[in-house]
């Protein structure tokens, strides 16, 4: 697995990056799992807000009205009313921080609006100016700040127990304890870790975490914990907190051991590989092996749900002009499925069994976002959507070679809008200082 050696930075300046390169940030509405992701459609260029006036000599905090000039994820380029086409004092703010208010907030809080000193001389009647500029304009809903706060409450709490994939043996799960929760992302510490450093990061909606008892219920391998007694305060995370998977009917035509398919390699998310169903589990789950790379004991088989957007029918790559990674050591190139299936005496998994739903996700090629490096899931990085194939996104990490790119589903909880790290107080990585 490729992983990066990086230095996290606190103050990555998305605003300057976006403006100096004329970039587009993916809108918050593309990310249903983030705060306000389900109600962001209202926020657009032209919406007015009340914001701290930093262009004043007054000693007390005063505010002024500003309009959204450009949006990039949670961040907005704002311009104080009265500056017209003058962009010299434009500034970026995260719209979800407490310093941003709907118009009307100052009056209800007893704070006066004071125009910036640079334009104070421009108008003699500021009341007439504001009436003209604001009548018929849009502002944030009055409950905006409350909604943001409500959206930033997460049900997972420290010391909750979950089952999570064993990062050293992908074929099995282990018990882990929630240690930290940041913006819905969990730092999980494996139960037997002596010093608390054997950890794993994932979002609470990750398909890699499950409630206690999940592995046994579906027949998945599980590393039994030597810890027999729960510490005080520990509790099993309630099952309703976890991602729900689609109900499937396995009684009829269904996946069978040995069937071939194409799958994103969990150890190299840049590659879609020739793969095999190795074991059919309950509730629609499958153990998948990457052809040519499997350990003899199946320790690197990986569990995907049959509705997972990371597995594809035979021929998917060819139809969509994606390079399919042939089995390691397979010499009959270019790889042809027809020949391979015949040589292996295998059959392709039926196309009808795969998830073909394509959400109206809203991503476009070139959009900027913050994305988890899934090979090092504690890292959230500056990234770009470089290709879209139905619901599949090719994510490039800015400043890094294309070989580090990852195929990620459009609904992945590991993708975030510009400004998400700032909102959740996490460090974002600028991946190459030179870039």
């Amino acid at each position: 697995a490729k992983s990066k050696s990086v230095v996290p930075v606190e103050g990555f300046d998305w605003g300057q990056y976006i403006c100096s390169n004329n970039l587009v940030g993916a809108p918050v509405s593309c990310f249903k799992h983030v705060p306000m992701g389900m109600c962001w459609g209202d926020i657009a260029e032209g919406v007015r807000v009340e914001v701290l006036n930093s262009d004043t000599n007054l000693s007390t905090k005063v505010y002024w009205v500003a309009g959204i000039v450009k949006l990039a994820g949670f961040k907005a380029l704002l311009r104080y009313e009265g500056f017209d086409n003058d962009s010299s004092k434009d500034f970026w703010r995260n719209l979800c921080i407490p310093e941003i208010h709907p118009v009307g907030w100052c009056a209800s809080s007893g704070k006066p609006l004071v125009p910036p000193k640079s334009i104070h001389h421009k108008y003699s009647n500021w009341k007439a100016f504001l009436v003209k500029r604001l009548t018929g304009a849009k502002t944030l809903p009055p409950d905006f700040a409350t909604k943001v706060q409500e959206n930033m409450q997460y049900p997972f709490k420290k010391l909750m127990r979950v089952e999570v994939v064993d990062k050293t043996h992908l074929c099995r799960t282990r018990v882990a304890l929630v240690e930290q929760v940041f913006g819905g992302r969990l730092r999980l510490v494996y139960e037997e870790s002596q010093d608390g450093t054997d950890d794993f990061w994932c979002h609470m909606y990750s398909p890699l975490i499950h409630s206690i008892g999940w592995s046994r219920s579906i027949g998945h391998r599980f590393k039994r914990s030597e810890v027999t007694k729960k510490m005080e305060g520990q509790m099993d995370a309630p099952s309703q907190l976890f991602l729900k998977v689609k109900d499937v009917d396995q009684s009829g035509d269904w996946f069978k051991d040995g069937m071939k398919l194409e799958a994103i390699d969990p150890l190299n998310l840049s590659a879609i590989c020739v793969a095999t169903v190795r074991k059919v589990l309950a509730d629609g789950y499958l153990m998948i092996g990457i052809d040519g790379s499997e350990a003899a004991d199946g320790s690197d088989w990986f569990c995907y749900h049959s509705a997972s957007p990371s597995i594809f029918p035979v021929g998917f790559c060819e139809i969509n002009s994606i390079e399919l990674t042939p089995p390691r050591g397979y010499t009959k190139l270019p790889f042809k499925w027809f020949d391979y299936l015949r040589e292996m005496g295998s059959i392709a998994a039926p196309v009808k069994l795969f998830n073909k739903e394509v959400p109206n996700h809203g991503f476009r090629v070139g959009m900027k976002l913050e994305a988890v490096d899934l090979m090092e899931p504690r890292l959230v990085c500056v990234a770009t959507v470089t290709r879209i194939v139905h619901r599949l996104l090719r994510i490039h990490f800015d400043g890094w070679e294309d070989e580090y790119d990852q195929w990620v589903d459009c609904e992945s909880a590991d993708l975030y809008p510009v400004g998400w790290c700032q909102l959740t107080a996490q460090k974002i990585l600028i991946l190459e200082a030179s870039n």
Partner: protein
Amino acid sequence: AAEASGRKWEQKQVQIKTLEGEFSVTMWASDDKK
């Protein structure tokens, strides 16, 4: 998009306070209808 998310724009009387005094303007704000 606002309607799809269950919100719609509504006209609101918004109070403005300046150093010269208070007045109101009619603006659009979205309401949560969920």
